[in-house]
């Protein structure tokens, strides 16, 4: 067990970083991390007002290397390290956004964004409203989040509910390489503050995606918008799995297993938690009549609760069974040796599918 967790430690190892760098090579599939890195670089090129800062994002390129090479390429005025103070980072970003910049800041890990909570809840979220739209804050707060990487305490929180509950913030979370690129570019170009959740277990996942072509499409406004748009990750007809971020792959795995048993599950990737895509979600549930919400975060008063509440409010008469949840337990995120028991698994999702009152 410890051997495994060592390999999967949240601080990316030198070897992993070199592997990631290699993956950038054209003829190879692209990692999620590289897509984010490219989105940052392309945004720096496209818009002079974009600046990137945070802890260790400069010379080091971030502990996950998402900002790798940006200081070298764009200079330390465009991508730079700050003193170690998250409230300071967010607060300074607010000021820079007031004065014409588009700051993209990194919180090193999910739980280390908490010191900035007041700045985020009382200012980032509210400055536009407070000034009748006179000051807008086009800033992105990048937060590597969630588990599945054998990280130690404070390094694996799924903290999206805190921000999704705070009016004035947009909350995005990509789950595939293409979305990593497109959604980060959209977030940076948004005139509203976006809390951008990056499922850290996906950083090293690879897909065959042509980032250059994606960039071209995006800049020509030819790519579909992702804000407020859920994505049908797998079509199905018997029940809907509604999920996002790190749980999308788990839901897809469950859907694959279910298909072998003759059950057709539709998987929705919410992508944009705020604003929320009621339309796509309700259309799917009205079609299937059954739904399960899957998310890593502890379930109580969570984004999953919200999705359940919305679905039953809007699709009540289409529902053949209650909307169920498969979420993390209501406990502090557990350490590496136990996280597999905490996280939603394909098996646990299938157990929930079994409870959808098929006999009814």
């Amino acid at each position: 067990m410890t051997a495994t967790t060592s390999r999967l430690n949240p601080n990316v190892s030198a070897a992993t970083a070199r592997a990631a760098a290699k993956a950038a090579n054209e003829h190879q599939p692209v990692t999620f991390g590289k897509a984010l890195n490219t989105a940052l670089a392309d945004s720096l090129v496209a818009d002079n007002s974009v600046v990137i800062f945070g802890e260790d994002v400069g010379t080091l390129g971030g502990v996950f290397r998402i900002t790798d090479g940006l200081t070298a390429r764009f200079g330390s005025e465009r991508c730079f390290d700050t003193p170690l103070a998250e409230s300071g980072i967010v607060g300074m970003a607010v000021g820079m956004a007031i004065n014409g910049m588009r700051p993209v800041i990194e919180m090193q890990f999910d739980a280390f964004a908490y010191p900035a909570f007041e700045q985020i809840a009382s200012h980032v979220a509210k400055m536009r409203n407070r000034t009748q739209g006179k000051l807008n804050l086009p800033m992105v707060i990048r937060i590597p989040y969630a588990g599945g990487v054998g990280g130690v305490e404070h390094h694996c929180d799924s903290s999206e509910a805190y921000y999704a509950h705070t009016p004035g913030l947009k909350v995005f979370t990509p789950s595939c390489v293409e979305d990593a690129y497109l959604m980060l570019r959209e977030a940076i170009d948004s005139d509203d503050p976006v809390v951008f959740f990056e499922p850290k277990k996906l950083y090293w996942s690879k897909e065959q995606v042509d980032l250059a072509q994606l960039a071209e499409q995006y800049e020509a406004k030819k790519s579909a918008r992702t804000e407020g748009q859920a994505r049908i990750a797998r079509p199905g007809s018997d029940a809907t799995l509604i999920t996002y971020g790190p749980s999308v792959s788990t839901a897809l795995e469950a859907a694959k297993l279910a298909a072998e048993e003759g059950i057709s599950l539709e998987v929705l990737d919410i992508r944009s938690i705020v604003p929320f895509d009621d339309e796509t979600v309700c259309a799917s549930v009205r079609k299937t009549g059954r739904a399960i919400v899957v998310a890593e975060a502890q379930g109580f008063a969570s984004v999953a609760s919200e999705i359940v509440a919305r679905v039953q409010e809007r699709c009540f008469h289409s529902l053949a069974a209650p909307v169920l949840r498969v979420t993390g337990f209501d406990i502090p995120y557990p350490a590496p040796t136990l996280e597999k028991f905490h996280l939603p698994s394909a098996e646990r999702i299938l157990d929930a599918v079994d409870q959808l009152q098929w006999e009814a």
Partner: protein
Amino acid sequence: MSTEAHADRISDVSKKFGITPEDYMLPARHMINLLNPDGTLRPEDQQGTEPGHEYPLPSPARLLEAYAALVTGRRVNDQNSALVRQGRMAVYPSSHGQEACQIAAALCLGENDWLFPTYRDTVAVLTKGVAPMEVMTSFRGEWHCGYDPKAYNCAPMSTPLTTQLLHAVGVAHAAKLRGEDTVVVAMCGDGATSEGDFHEALNFAAVFNLPVIFFVQNNKYAISVPLSQQSAAPSLAHKAVGYGMAGERVDGNDLMALMAIMTRAVRMAREGNGPLLIEAHTYRMQAHTNADDDKRYREDSEVQEWIAKDPVTRMKAYLDDAGLLTDSTVAKITADAESVAKTLRDGMNQEANTDPRELFEHVYSAKTPQLAEQQAMLVDELDREEA
């Protein structure tokens, strides 16, 4: 990148003054104070100045301009308190007694410079040029700050204590990256210096060598908590050296000293010497707000003592003695102040103009489907009510 630049700057500056960097950064042994409470100029050896801590006297014209603003500031404080008593304004944190600080902080800035005020800094905001009724918008119970911060280079008056200091740092940083020489004044109270954001803001400003002047109005209380319960430091200005910047104490009821210090501070910041911390010793003459009962935590005799140090009478006595206050000047100053007070009275007699439909308009740059739905519900309610 910039820290070493900042350390170099400090070392250059202190060399120019012929003192050590430490002596430059630590406040002068005594508080800077140019005028006695009775308005007479203090002898040079009692002004608190020492090598590296010397501040040229402002010109008579500048002093007159500042005095006019001071009279208006006082008038506005008292007018607003009256409006509260008459039930025409919800709440007002008066800065009666602290007006000299606020005038100096705002008046020494250029048009392109930014001000980051708190809830108590009405007078500073006015001095920065914001229209009186716009300044008072939030205190009368409306839902927005009332003015366009970019039109005046003046941030909304901040309520969460000290948070705005970081925004000030960001504004200065953005300007610096674009090569603009914007100076930023960030204001807070003595109590607010205890918050973590104070620390982070000063540190960021020094590390990035940014032209931010942190201006602390030490009015001796944070609501009921006296300074002695807030900090055990020899002075709040002594915090500066811990960030690698210069700190200075000044008599906050001495408009001449304040103008002298702020003029040099703005010049030095603009020349690229990084941030500064200024602690102005003043006193909150009235309760924290109209909702507070200051009899619970301080003796009236303490308040009485400070009447003798009033910034308005002090400055007036100096200008009178110096023969700078002609009758016509006095008349013009009084009339200007009265005119602002009248604007406030007239404005506050108008009903606040608020449409509940607007609740949803500025949460995001465009309404989300969720907010559109919620707005529709409210509109439907309103329509039914009207029907």
